[in-house]
């Protein structure tokens, strides 16, 4: 019965005090919309940078005249090195096949080669791209004379494309920091904007709150209708925003995702999860904001 009363009170306030509630509604709608667009874009961008980072790998080229036993032994010692996630053996013929694939229609050139000039190799996948130097160091430790030497006679050369690696690492980490900062700012701005609008809406009714406390209403008796009102406004603002997002997804993003890898990136946030998150955040911020803002006017 109490809940029914509070619900009726908040509906009355919404009906009779439509303008400030509408402002709060519009603010929540727009901020939710912005967040709803930004979050998937950010997630996709992060996923893409991670993908680029994960491409960094180490290549260990094998001597032409290494024996099969030596090659196998090298493989097992690479795999037992710290920070190595995987080491794939690429035989000479396989290397040729990869080259052919990469050349595509121009693969005829390969046929003109006198033999197979490509060396066999181990492609090493690292647990973290930042560890490439340490893995290289353990495959090529410094000897007693202070000069580096390979741990196996089968190794011809170790390549980690140092310059490329460093560039990619610094660029991707910058992008990550930027995105995180931007996301933080956007969330902060949204919360502040919604909080301010709610303040205005409550402020417009501070006299009413004063009268309620003077006739003996407890703080929560005054507060519940405001919280419920915030709940309703937040929920519907979020709902409309999510509806618009869904329409946008169905009409614009989905048809394009076939063509653009970024949009189709599998690591981007799931739509249902995004919707649930946004709706919950909009409702919670609005309801809690209304309840908190009231505190100032309840100290009569």
């Amino acid at each position, binding site marked *: 019965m109490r809940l029914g009363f509070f619900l009726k009170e908040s509906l009355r306030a919404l009906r009779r005090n439509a303008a400030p509630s509408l402002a709060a509604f519009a603010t929540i709608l727009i901020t939710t919309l912005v967040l709803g667009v930004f979050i998937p874009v950010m997630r996709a961008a992060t996923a893409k940078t991670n993908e680029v980072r994960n491409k960094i790998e180490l290549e260990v080229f094998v001597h032409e005249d290494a024996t099969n036993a030596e090659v196998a032994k090298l493989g097992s010692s690479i795999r037992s090195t710290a920070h190595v996630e995987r080491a794939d053996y690429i035989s000479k013929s396989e290397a040729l096949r990869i080259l052919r694939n990469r050349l595509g229609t121009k693969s005829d050139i390969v046929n003109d080669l006198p033999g197979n000039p490509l060396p066999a190799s181990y492609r090493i996948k690292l647990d973290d791209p930042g560890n490439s130097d340490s893995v290289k160091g353990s495959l090529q430790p410094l000897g007693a004379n202070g000069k580096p030497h390979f741990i196996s006679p089968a190794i011809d050369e170790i390549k980690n494309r140092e310059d490329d690696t460093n560039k990619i690492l610094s660029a991707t980490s910058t992008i990550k920091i930027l995105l995180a900062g931007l996301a933080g700012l956007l969330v902060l701005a949204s919360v502040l904007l919604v909080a301010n609008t709610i303040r205005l809406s409550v402020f417009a009714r501070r*006299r*009413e709150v004063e*009268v*309620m*406390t*003077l*006739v*003996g209403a*407890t703080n929560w008796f005054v507060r519940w209708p405001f919280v419920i009102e915030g709940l309703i406004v937040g929920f519907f603002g979020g709902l409309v925003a999510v509806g618009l997002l869904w329409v946008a997804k169905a009409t614009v993003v989905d048809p394009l995702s076939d063509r653009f890898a970024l949009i189709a990136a599998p690591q981007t946030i799931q739509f249902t999860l995004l919707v649930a998150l946004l709706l919950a955040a909009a409702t919670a911020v609005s309801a809690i904001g209304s309840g908190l803002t009231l505190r100032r006017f309840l100290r*009569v």
Partner: protein
Amino acid sequence: MRKNNGSKQGAVTAGSGARNGTPAVQLRDVTVVYPGGNVGLDGASVAIDRGEFAFLVGPTGCGKSTFIRLLMRQAQAGRGQALIAGRDIGKLPRSKVPMLRRNIGVVFQDYKLLPNRTIYDNVAYCLQVIGERRSEIRRKVPEALRLVGLTTKLNSYPDELSGGEQQRVSLARAFVNHPPLLLADEPTGNLDPETSVGIMQLLYRMNRTGTTVIVATHDREMVDRMRRRVIQLREGRIVRDQHSGLYLADESTSEFAARLENGVPAAGR
């Protein structure tokens, strides 16, 4: 909660009308200083018995409103004690303040009605606050509105009524609970003399049911006509406390002349 409230109200009204026992309202050397440094009350001591009708008079800024605010616990005594039915309301924890206010009917100069509610809902809100049953609300609200003579405008909104009518609604709201204590802060301040008489008559009628009524006013005509207890304040001090008094104390011609010479303005208008 409701039960507690009921029993408390019962306890207070039980002794109403009697001139003995604990006073309904008692101030013991109360000083109220506002944060800005303004003095609201300065060492005021007074006792008002149950069932009494008392006027607080004096010019603006003399402490009348502070007196009312103190009893509503909108202001707190910096020194001294304010007691209602023998209980020090300064010691009341914040969470109990609503309970105190439920036992005090209050009327303001600017009516303080809820603008988004009909007349009926404005009066009903007071009962909803204390968790009154719906059937009781349906019975008590029309009764209170009948008492103030507003049976035909139940569904009007406050801004559709005249000032006098709005004040009568706020009287109905103050009285719907049948509180043991009724406070009125300049209830006729915004009204013409004829309407004021009606409001005073209502306050008087409520007083006759046993409710203690305290009216802060500078409406000289009203005070003189009612001939009730008059408590005169000046700069936060109680300077006169007289049963069946006039707005101004009788003064001799020489006193009046002395006052004029000293340039002290007359109390009141």
